[in-house]
């Protein structure tokens, strides 16, 4: 059933972040990151932010990290970004 719905959506050319729970990560320069479709924050320190999404966890490393703007479904991180890595959930595969 789910797979069928997905195919219809793909045919209609809907943006992926709207119909699925998959996060969209936008990186603007080296100082700003926008994450849409997030679930919650696991850890927040000045040098590390761990963000939980529906398909896994996003780790952001850097200095002077700030959560600039938070709404129900998108999040803006600013600061000196150094690296980020992804930890996919094992059962999703």
């Amino acid at each position, binding site marked *: 059933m789910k797979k069928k719905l997905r195919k219809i959506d793909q045919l209609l050319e809907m943006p992926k972040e709207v119909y699925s729970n998959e996060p969209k990560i936008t990186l603007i320069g080296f100082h700003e990151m926008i994450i849409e479709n997030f679930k*919650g924050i696991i850890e927040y320190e000045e040098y590390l932010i761990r963000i939980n999404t529906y398909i896994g966890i996003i780790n952001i490393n850097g200095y002077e990290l*700030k*959560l600039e703007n*938070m709404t129900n479904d998108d999040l803006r991180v600013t600061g000196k970004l150094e690296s980020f890595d992804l930890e996919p959930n094992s059962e999703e595969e």
Partner: protein
Amino acid sequence: MLIKIIFYYLLGYVRIVIEGYYIERFINICTTQKIAIWHLKREKNVRLSLNIGIHDFKEVAKIARKTKCHISIQQKKGFPFLLHQYKKRKIFIGLLILICLSIGISANFVWNIEIVAENEQMFEGITNDISEAGLTIGEWKPKINTKEIINQVRLKRQDIAWMGIELKGTNAIVKLVKAEAKPEIINEQEYCNIVSDKVGVVTKINAQNGTAAVKPGDTINVGSTLIHGWIEGKYTGLRYVHAKGEIEAKVWYTKSKKIPYQLTERKDTGSEEKSYSLKFNNFKINLPKKLSKFQIYDTIEEERKLKLFSNFYLPISIVETTNKEQTEETKNLSPEEAKTLGVEELEQELNQEIPDQEKIVNKNINTYERGDSLEVFVTYEVLETIGTNEKIVF
């Protein structure tokens, strides 16, 4: 984003500090409860500062208690707090309202009347006529009926061709156009005499139509008939005509002046002092320094009206009084010097009066001793064509 900041500024927001071990949980609960939070900053291991709107503060305090965090307000920002700050300053707010009200009220009155004309000196007493018609300084604007004022003034005066009143702010602009004075036109067909309009001696008379009433050498007065508007024929009898002709006469222009032998002359020394005073309509407040330190001085007063914008005049004006120091010098004139001085001044006056300098035939100067002064008479003999038409009334 900018719109959002302005929106929150208008509603008011607070920067709070959260201290505790479950800060991540606090953030997550806030997002799930759809509370807008922004500018989050982790300061130390256990501290987080963030902004929230003031209407969410109670909710946030509840969440903080649930997550066992300590909450404190760091800064209050926004318009409601600014308003609250000024609530305590009652006199300030009161005066602000008073000033706004007084400006609003005073905008409904006329505080300045500006007369715009090509040559303002030509309209003598126009300011009086306008104020009598109902346009005065301090008049309530809705009460002014411009059409009626224009009608009243135009009925009163003959020398206005066009008049317009424009109310701009607190300024009333009166525009005037001069009407040319026209001589009375007498129809060619109508019977008329030619009469003299000056005093003099006739030198030449040439009647083209009508009968000459004077001969060369006759002295004439104002109003005496020069050419009669009738012709008497042997067979036709008395016949009335439109008199026509040229009359040339010697006319005298005389001016006199008394010149005292002791003349005091005033000269500016160059030093001056200024004093200012405020004026509300007729009520004057003198600012200090009133008495002049000069012994002899000339005073010049200049009034300047205060205005906010180009046409928003206020009922307050500043009067600047300038005192110019002067020195007096007494000069003793000999009779000769007095005469030349008097003649010079009188000739200048006469030259202004007589437009055609070439027709001056003779100049006469007479002087009379009058005790401590000399009276000088200057007489010009001028050849002029005279005469105006006068209708014959039966």
